[in-house]
């Protein structure tokens, strides 16, 4: 297991290298002069020239790339051109915000998606199956930004049940410890704040969860149906086992690997979808951090932001891979 993890990590190295290169090249290809953008419309020519020089933007691209790589090796993600802060220092709260949102969305997606899939597979062709699958189909077809806007309009503006945006009530800000406010409020014993944070999470997390939920439900259903046709399920039933346990014990465990794979892949969708959701719900997460950085040509932030998200994604998929072996004894990693 350890060896396998090590091996997989080693295999990641070329991928990570390639990623840095691709990101670097794309970012450099973005037209527009960051110096000008930082200084804004009102800036003078001299100011722009001076800034360009001090940012090293006058160097040829490969020098910039090697400088960048060199910095990466020392764990330095560069400094935000805009704020002048080290990216590594300022990125964490954004990352935490996205991870909290993504995590809650994933939990919603998994809990509802997996169970809907199971029940649909179990009672195949029942009305539940049909309606769940139709909903799931609509779910994968719905543009989440549209759904998010509609939700915001209905539940916040019209009904006033939920807050429209951000992570908490600014009048009573949560004191950040881990920057995962669900955790922080609990550590601080502020149950009222915890509820407030939950309320803020509901709309964006549901919007974000829709597509993965639908995909997971569909995937779970089809693998479950396949698994439930397999011989060992027949064996379990031939023993006289209850259908519930046959489904939730024997079938589910076997269906988990493809479902897990989908879940791993969906995190990518989730991290990408975060840009849209975070924009709509003013969620101070990494998606918006990157998006804002794109507008301000904040190269180090765009680069590092994309890389970190991609890295996270890669890591989650690695984790999923490793989980396989925990679940399936047949997968022996050495």
């Amino acid at each position, binding site marked *: 297991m350890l060896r396998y993890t090590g091996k997989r990590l080693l295999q990641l190295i070329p991928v990570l290298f390639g990623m840095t290169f691709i990101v670097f090249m794309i970012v450099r290809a973005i037209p527009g002069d960051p110096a000008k953008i930082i200084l804004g419309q009102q800036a003078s020519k001299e100011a722009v020239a001076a800034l360009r020089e001090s940012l090293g933007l006058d160097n040829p691209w490969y020098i910039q790339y090697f400088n960048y790589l060199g910095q990466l090796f020392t764990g330095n993600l560069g400094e935000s051109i805009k704020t002048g802060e080290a990216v590594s220092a300022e990125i964490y709260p954004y990352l935490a915000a996205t991870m909290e949102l993504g995590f809650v969305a994933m939990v919603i997606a998994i809990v509802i998606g997996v169970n809907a899939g199971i029940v649909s597979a179990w009672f195949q062709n029942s009305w539940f199956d049909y309606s769940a699958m139709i909903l799931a189909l609509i779910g994968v077809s719905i543009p989440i930004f*549209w759904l998010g806007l509609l939700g915001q309009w209905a539940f916040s503006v019209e009904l006033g049940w939920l807050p429209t945006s951000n992570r908490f009530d600014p009048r009573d800000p949560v004191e950040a410890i881990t920057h995962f406010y669900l955790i922080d409020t609990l550590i601080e014993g502020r149950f009222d704040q915890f509820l407030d944070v939950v309320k803020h999470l509901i709309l964006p997390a549901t919007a974000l969860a829709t597509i993965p939920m639908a995909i997971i439900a569909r995937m779970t259903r089809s693998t479950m149906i396949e698994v439930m046709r397999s011989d060992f399920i027949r064996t379990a039933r031939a023993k006289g086992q209850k259908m519930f346990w046959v489904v939730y014990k024997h079938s589910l465990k076997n269906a988990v690997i493809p479902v897990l794979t989908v879940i791993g892949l969906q995190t990518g969708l989730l991290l990408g979808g975060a840009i849209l959701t975070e924009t709509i719900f003013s969620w101070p997460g990494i998606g918006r951090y990157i998006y804002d950085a794109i507008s301000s040509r904040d190269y180090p932030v765009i680069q590092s932001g994309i890389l970190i998200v991609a890295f996270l994604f890669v890591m989650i998929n690695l984790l999923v891979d490793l989980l396989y072996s925990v679940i399936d004894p047949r997968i022996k990693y050495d």
Partner: protein
Amino acid sequence: MTGITPEIQLPEEKSKARSPFQDSLRTFRKSKVAVVGTIIVAFFILLAIFGPWIAPQGINEQNLKLRLLPPSSAHWFGTDVFGRDIFSRVILGARLSLLVGFASVALSIIIGSILGILAGYYGRWVDTIISRFFDILLAFPSILLAIAIVTALGPSLFNALLAIAIVNVPNFGRLIRSKVLSIKEEEFITAARAVGMRDTRILWGHVLPNSMTPIIVQGTLAIATAIIEAAALGFLGLGAQAPQPEWGKMLADARIYLINAPWTMIFPGLAIMLTVLGFNLMGDGLRDAFDPKMKN
């Protein structure tokens, strides 16, 4: 010809020669889901083709006096801030969304097939390089990568199309690679080799045609995704540009009228959803028909 055991014919049903493809089409036609999907898709394709004749107004017939009118018999879907007929714009938008969907997927399939076949058939370092390249691209959440690419290329519908195509390449590439690999191991390929067939001929005559159906299935589903992605890019201002009636862009434009004039954003959103749903249904139907193993 003595001594050869003849095959005695059962009074078998006079079945005609039916290729698996025809068989699949029959299954496809029988599936309600698939039929509904096909109807929706066909409907939007017709809109795309005949839109200019159906739509009561052109794309950009502004009449600032008629702005933000709610749906009425004159303007079924109401009007937008320029006093343009939303119904007409939604109809005319079908062309753009389908264009992006089909063109980007076609592009990814072409590039993906070439790379996938190279990797799958030639193996070794070619495979290593191409597969790594796919890995790298796949390591990025796709929308994020698409956004980055469009930002670099400059926002436009064409660039959005291009970005979506690039982002999808590894999906097809991998699919085709794995198809090639698995078909290579099929016994009928061994049989072809045993007969003395050349590699290239095996590739074109056996491997490729047998990879087609998963590509068609995946392609249909990818069109659905591509349409949503294009709309998302449009929504972020990175896709289609004014006055193109692209649905995502219409949503973005309508966003500030959410409270005053909700119809401006309800209809384009519905249009996206319906089209995407159509492709998804059709894709599902195709998968069930062509890939019976996946059928449930």
